[in-house]
């Protein structure tokens, strides 16, 4: 059974008089353990697609099954719970809390999951060690480099053991060298069995995935399996 099954998803926004159709009927299945790149230029609908996959938004019509449950009709509270349990977000601008240490930032999703404090601490330490930041747990984001910040964000995404890692232009704010390091980390995580979806407009980034889905004008333009050398 697929981890993600989108069936005829549409999403439109009413902007005053006119209606913007961001998604026009998308069907897509993603299995557990896949590493998928969602590619498309700006305005293609890929951001809407990401919001949909990340349960930040619900479709205007169609059906979204995540891990066997229909999430397309859920209310705010249920969606929050699904995001907490199933999704690990990685953002272009890292989105760390500036006044909190790396450790506290990583603990955050567990706070909303109701994990007891000492277990939170333990798991956050483990996640930070996994991304190679064991030495820097007490530092605040402004004391870390861009690459290190994104590693903190990755650790935060991993810490609740989500079904999906959902990365939105994860290398967009990084120089090419650190960008490659992050993508190498993704490869590593994928090899360990994590399901990863990367949303990007850069072909070079998308090439790191094993499957590439191109989105254009709110529809899926192509869906190909990438052959690794």
């Amino acid at each position, binding site marked *: 059974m697929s981890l993600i099954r989108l069936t005829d998803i549409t999403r439109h926004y009413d902007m005053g008089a006119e209606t913007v159709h961001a998604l026009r009927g998308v069907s897509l299945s993603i299995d557990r353990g896949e590493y998928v790149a969602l590619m498309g230029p700006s305005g293609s609908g890929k951001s809407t697609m990401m919001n949909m996959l990340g349960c930040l938004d619900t479709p205007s019509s169609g059906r979204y099954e995540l891990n066997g449950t229909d999430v397309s009709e859920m209310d705010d509270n249920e969606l929050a719970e699904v995001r907490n349990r199933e999704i690990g977000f990685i953002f272009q601008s890292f989105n760390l809390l500036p006044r909190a240490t790396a450790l506290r930032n990583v603990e*955050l999703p567990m706070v909303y*999951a109701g994990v007891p404090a000492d277990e939170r601490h333990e798991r956050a330490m483990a996640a930070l060690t996994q991304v190679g930041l064991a030495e820097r747990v007490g530092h605040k984001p402004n004391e870390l480099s861009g690459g290190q910040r994104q590693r903190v964000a990755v650790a935060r995404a991993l810490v609740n053991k989500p079904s999906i890692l959902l990365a939105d232009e994860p290398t967009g704010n990084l120089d090419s060298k650190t960008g490659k390091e992050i993508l190498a980390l993704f490869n590593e995580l994928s090899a360990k069995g994590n399901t990863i979806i990367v949303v990007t407009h850069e072909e070079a980034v998308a090439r790191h995935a094993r499957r590439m889905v191109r989105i254009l004008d709110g529809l899926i333009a192509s869906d190909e399996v990438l052959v690794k050398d």
Partner: protein
Amino acid sequence: MRLIAELFEGLWIALDAIRANKLRSALTTLGIVVGIVTVSLMAAAIDGLNQAFIKSISAIGADVVFIEKFPWFNEEPWWKVRNRNDITQAHARALAKQSQHAEAVAAVTFSRRAVRYGDAIATSVTIVGTTEQGAIVDGLNLTEGRFLAAAEVEGARPVCVLGADVAANFFPYESPLGKRVRISDSTFEVVGVLTRRGTFLAMESLDNQVFIPITRFNQVVSWRPNVTIRVKVKDMKKIPEAREEFRGIMRKLRNVAPGDADDFAINEQQAFINMFHRVGGVIAAVGLFITGLSLFVGGIGIMNIMFVSVAERTKEIGLRKALGAKPRAILLQFLLEAALICLLGGLIGLGLAWGAAAGAASVLPMRISPMVVGLALGVSLVTGVIAGFLPAWRAAKMDPVEALRVE
């Protein structure tokens, strides 16, 4: 479990937000500080007055009723009651004889006169004419000597008992017992000295008094004056029955025809307390309303700054929601921040009010009681929660997609 984690997280964020914006938080809370200072000072003043009043009024004694010509708080037109006959000592004696409920009865009257001892003179001393049971009825204690004896009252003997101040002024180094003081050109031998009693309603000293037999009082101070009959009731629980009994006896003594209204009044401490509470309640309500207005203004300031705080942290709200924060958790976070700012203001305000109350203690009897502390902190907390609710609600209902898009 999850709620507790969210609560701690909210508390952490709130403290962090206040730390990050120290000046802003301080300025915002100033409105609350002012509000709490006024509210708690007002409450302290009311409380202090109440305490002072109750302490004073207890000097009257809860188990003593006063049979007098006029009620203390007259509700009849004056022309209806002005022709009432005086209450006399004969009434008091008859009442004492006939009553089952009375433990002690005293006929009391007083007047201000100068008191002399040798060359020394004390003007405007309250001369109290009373009977031998006056000490029981008024709860008088003696440091020296004894109170007036029945035979002395019967025989109108020239003896007196001094109040503590009078005794201290005239006889600073010696015992007054056996000394002779002069009142209205008549000589009185001192037979007793009272212990200190303090003041009545913070005005009238109860120690600047001299007690003499009422029979003697009639001869040298005032000819057959109107008296008050003070009756100490045996059982406090039976005051209503006692009142009825006294009323019946008095009506008979004064030949009031059946169906006619009483031509006397039976007063008691409770009437005083009731009156005070009625007036005090109105003062308290008006005062607290006015001071409450300043708190309201402070609350608006809090609401304003919380809207700013929510707007500033839109992206953070989006992030928290993306990570799984429910609307409830976000609501809690901002409510806690508002409540904490207000509570801080409340504590500062309470500290200032405490200082002010201590400073003003000599002029006005103020008291910051646990009740006032609870009131101040409770009010500031409630103000915070109310003022913070709208901004917090807005934050809780934010669309995470929109919030994350904000730079």
